[in-house]
């Protein structure tokens, strides 16, 4: 009997840990199902878009908070020139800088830009989190945010890919959007530019890029499925 009790207790403890840890770690995006999967109701495209946009909004919020915290801890250098010449590693990606530009852009292009941005930031954010964890200057709160941020980029990319697939399935966009999931497509261009950047610049750049992603997604949504909240 004690053996049974022990096993039961162990299993129970494991379950509790799983649940607890699961809550702590990630903010999971809602699982998206394909049509073939059973037990999973299919979401509409508008729903998918809403979820993705919410996700990106949250990601942007976290990046904004982190950037503000960094500014408190690290005063910006007087070297204003350096700031101006700061070069985000994603500046090579051509992104529309205005509403008209964004609206003029084709859906497929816009989608690709989004995906590129998300892909470009996966590694830098992961390394940023690693460096933050090692710095004892930062409190746990910032460290958790950085981890959350890097995870969210990952999840957001997957979500956007789902949206693209759905759009392609619905025939909204053509299949010319390349599958950017493959890491080989980006590793070449990515190289190690981001490794040269300082943490603060990284945050600055990411904050901007996350805002871009959010904006582009909104534009896409209101262009494709304008009935809800546009």
């Amino acid at each position, binding site marked *: 009997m004690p053996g049974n009790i022990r096993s039961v207790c162990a299993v129970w403890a494991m379950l509790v840990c799983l649940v607890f840890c699961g809550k702590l770690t990630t903010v999971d995006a809602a699982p998206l199902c394909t049509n073939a999967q059973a037990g999973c109701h299919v979401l509409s495209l508008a729903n998918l878009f809403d979820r993705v946009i919410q996700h990106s909004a949250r990601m942007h919020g976290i990046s904004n908070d982190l950037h503000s915290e960094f500014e408190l801890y690290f005063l910006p250098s007087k070297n204003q020139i350096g700031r*101006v010449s700061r070069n985000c590693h994603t500046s090579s990606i051509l992104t529309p800088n205005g509403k008209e530009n964004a609206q003029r852009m084709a859906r497929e292009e816009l989608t690709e830009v989004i995906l590129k941005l998300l892909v470009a930031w996966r590694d830098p954010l992961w390394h940023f989190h690693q460096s933050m964890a090692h710095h004892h200057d930062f409190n746990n709160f910032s460290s958790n945010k950085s981890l959350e941020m890097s995870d969210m980029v990952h999840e957001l990319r997957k979500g956007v890919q789902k949206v693209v697939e759905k759009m392609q399935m619905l025939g909204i966009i053509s299949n010319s959007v390349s599958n950017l999931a493959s890491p080989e497509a980006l590793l070449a261009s990515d190289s190690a530019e981001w490794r040269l950047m300082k943490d603060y610049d990284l945050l600055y750049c990411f904050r901007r890029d996350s805002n871009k992603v959010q904006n582009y997604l909104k534009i896409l949504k209101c*262009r494709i499925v304008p009935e809800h909240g546009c």
Partner: protein
Amino acid sequence: MMKKFREVILLLLLLSFVPHAEGTRYSLPGKPALTRCRSPEKETFTCWWEPGSDGGLPTTYALYYRKENSETVYECPDYHTAGKNSCFFNKNDTSIWVNYNITVVASNALGSTFSDPVDIDVVYIGEGDVEGEVVLLLIIQPDVKPNPPEKVAVTVMEDKGWPFLRVSWEPPHKADTRSGWITLIYELRVKLEGENEWEMHLAGQQKMFNIFSLRSGGRYLVQVRCKPDHGFWSEWSSASHIKVPDYFHRERSVWILITVFFAFIFLIVSWCIHINSHSLKHCILPPVPGPKIRGFDKQLLKNGKSEDIFSALVVSDFPPTSSSNYEDLLVEYLEVYIPEEQELILEESKDLHDGCLKPKGSTFDSDSGRGSCDSHTLLMDKCGEAKDDGRQTDQDGSQTGSEAQRQQAAWEQEALTYAHEDMISPDMSSGRVKTWPSVFSPLPQYSLSPLSQPSSLETAKQHCLSDSLFPPSSLSSYLTQPGQSTKEALRSSCSDFCSSNKQPLLLHPQPDARHQLQARSDVSISSISHKEAPAGLQLPTVRSTEYVEVHTVNEEDMVLLHPVPVGHSHGKGCLQTHQGEDYSKVNGVDKNNVLLLQREVMEEQVDMCPCENKDANGATESYCTSSAQKSIPCIHTALPVQEEKAVNGYVDTATMFPLPIH
């Protein structure tokens, strides 16, 4: 002199010019500073600066900016649209997500002064917090501040009779929310006219909002504002006035109805209370019982004469010392008139029990022993008299037979009393209740009306026999000394009586008639010696069940008893066949004022000849030949029912005593 005067004047002039010359010193203009930049829709933006000191010379300001990753310096395209000291960047010149490095230059004739450069990202336009020449901190904050919402429309709508406000608006026309370029969230506030507190409501991204819980007839002010995801709140829109119509009229009518209804109920309740005020007073505040001492005069007490008071309390006639008529104290006794071949049945009414138990001596002469000839009416009449005279039931015994409900204690009391009073037969007094004290007492009190005329002795004997039939056993349950002794005493006394033959008795004409006198405790029937009775009279066993009924009271105030035979045929001179049942105990008086006797089964079988009993099983007739007392009609008595219940009282039957059969 003159030269000196000129020198002084020149000196004075020089002195006067000196300050003037200092005041007009020209210098470079002061350093301007960018104060803020705003973008209302994330497509254009405007920057304002603060000029510094102008240095005494006309100063011009210029704004130059450089975009990110470009060295090209541009000048502000529009200095006038946004007002003084501002620069407006239109759509073509605005690039989002691009850093602008903006510098303001103040120039005058002497030179120019550059402001500190500010990095501006339209999305995150920072406000330079510049002090002096040192840039302490550049706090970058998003400063997209949209215009307030437009076309705010407020209407009153109804929901199931209750009004509510519907506020609708449109985003500022510049903000492009339709394309998703900018996302605005709205907030509105409401307040009553004249109040100071606003009620805030966050409306999210919707452009319509309902406000409930309005005050009827109130005037409200509504304002709306908006904010992008990351930006500043816009200014509040201009207030919209709205008046809520009065909708409480319907409610008021309901309240009026309710008020009227409750007022009505209140009136009724107060009226009822007023009507029953007296009884309510008694209920709530019961009156304090005052002392009730008979003979106590409150007035005397108030007057304060104690002697009079206490003297009044003294009852002179207590304890009774005078040798009053014992008969007066005694309960009335019955004179049993036993007509020939008739049996007497005592009956008594309930009324008699209630109130008739009073000393008949008070109302009757010494010949009392009057019962009612006619049991019902006379008894009742006597009851009325009794009640009139006052309640002296404790001293009463019924002539004809009191109720079974008679208290035993009282009976005993009386029995003892009577026994005490009995002078004739002290043996009998040992607990027996006498019914015929007069039998043993002075005879004049005893009056009998002879219905039939047997020999006096016979009658006496019969009477005695009937008396002897008085079952001692039944008395024994209530009296202290039952037993043979009493019977013997009875017999002896009866025999004495018989021998004395002083008074004629109304006896049953049949010598063998069963004289079942069923009387109450007060009534004791003297017994006749059994030896004589059966021999001479062939008296029947007393076991036969009979009811003695008091029929009438004759003119001489004698109770005429009338036996009511039950289911027996009586022949003259025969003993009634008794089935071994004896009615010796009085069960009670039923509603028909019939004395209910209890049957007691006796072993003896008496061979009885059917006796004359015209009342066999049925209606009884009055055997009173003369019933003239007070014109009381004779009442037919119903056949008494044989009851075998528990006996509260008892009636001595004359047949209880087991007579030897022969």
